């Protein structure tokens, strides 16, 4: 094994000394054959990793199949499916209109963060964003809150950007925005964002997702507890 091969080996082992690292870098810059061999080994590493992961994926899929349909339930599941199909047909006839529900439950959410001084000349980004929001310039507000989020990933930016999109009738974008929130956090925004996300799903005819979120909010202590409970009842 040549010294160059040894260098590549040590690189992959993470055992290069400082001197060896310099030599490695030098060869990588100047030696075409060395570059080629290194590229080969990099790709080899990637292919082995990908192949190994695929094997493990197959095993997990088999495990999932075991978990998901324990065979003793299969016949019961088949019968249940038939019943569900009938029930769905019936319920489809008396399904509540999601647009109407959205209209009756949606209320614009006020600016609780920065009671603006209505100062048009405010220069900091949050002040500008909230001013736009307060003056119902929702397109501007959305863009500004997005900037704030890009800079600092602030939760309030997620909330108000999503709310702005809702006001603009852009529900897909509102959903994408709200999804940026880390729902494992239990803070002042969690249930507000969940509530409005639920309303977006409702508007988008994704009732099951809406119900899931509404259930969580109805169990919380937030200001939307009562509304979620009511809305859930109407959906069920």
């Amino acid at each position, binding site marked *: *094994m040549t010294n160059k091969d040894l260098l590549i*080996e040590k690189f*992959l*082992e*993470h*055992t290069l000394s400082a001197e060896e690292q310099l030599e490695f870098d030098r060869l990588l810059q100047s030696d075409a054959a060395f570059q080629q061999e290194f590229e080969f080994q990099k*790709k*080899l*590493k*990637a*292919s*082995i*990793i*990908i*192949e*190994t*992961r695929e094997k*493990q*994926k197959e*095993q*997990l*899929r088999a*495990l*999932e199949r075991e*978990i998901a349909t324990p065979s003793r339930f299969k016949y019961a599941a088949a019968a249940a499916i038939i019943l569900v199909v009938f029930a769905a047909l019936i319920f489809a006839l008396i399904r509540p209109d999601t647009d109407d529900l959205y209209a009756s439950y949606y209320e614009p959410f006020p600016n609780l963060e920065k009671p603006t001084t209505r100062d048009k000349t405010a220069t900091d980004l949050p002040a500008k964003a909230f001013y736009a929001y307060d003056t119902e310039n929702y397109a501007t507000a959305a863009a500004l809150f*997005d900037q704030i*989020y*890009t800079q600092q*990933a602030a939760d309030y930016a997620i909330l108000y950007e999503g709310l702005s999109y809702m006001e603009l009738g852009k529900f897909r974008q509102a*959903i*994408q*925005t709200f*999804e*940026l929130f*880390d*729902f*494992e956090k239990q803070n002042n925004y969690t249930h507000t964002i*969940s509530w409005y*996300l639920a309303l977006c799903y409702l508007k988008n005819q*994704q009732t099951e*997702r809406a119900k*899931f*979120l509404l259930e969580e909010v109805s169990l919380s202590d937030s200001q939307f507890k009562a509304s979620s409970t009511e809305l859930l009842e109407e959906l069920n």
Partner: protein
Amino acid sequence: MNEAEHTIKQLREGDELTISSVYKSNREKFISYARRFDINREDIIDIYQDAIIALTENAKKGLLDGLKSEISTYLFSIGKYMIYNHLKKNKNLPLFEKNIPDDITWNDYAEEMQDDEVRRMKASFSKLGEQCQKVLRLFYYEEKKLDDIVTALAYSNKDVLKSQKSRCIKQLKELIQNDK
């Protein structure tokens, strides 16, 4: 050795029962969390499986040794990152590049998976004998040092291992060449 350390050791050795058990015990909570996003159930399961694979991979690379948090927490961190990645890919979110949490290592090799050369290598790798696959996996996948591989596979010494590795790679190159 406490329970968490024991589980990590089992994961590092690829113990299937332990992997199964970790899979089953975290599954509901993950699905529950992921349901609020605009992802269909099949994809949720797919992402969960990827997270479990990442967990076991990192365990094998020794990255979980001395883990301060719970395994579930670690798994969840990876999972949440993967959910976000999935959302971004499928919707062209022109939004913030969420960074992978500092204490997690993960590369999805998305580009490499599309590379034809990599695909050929994968196919040829599968044709190698079991011993070659073992040696190469320990070195390239588990990132074990050669000294450790000598011990793990009970080779008489490092030179014997090195020449085996050399032969395996030479064989692989031939297989790739024949495949063209």
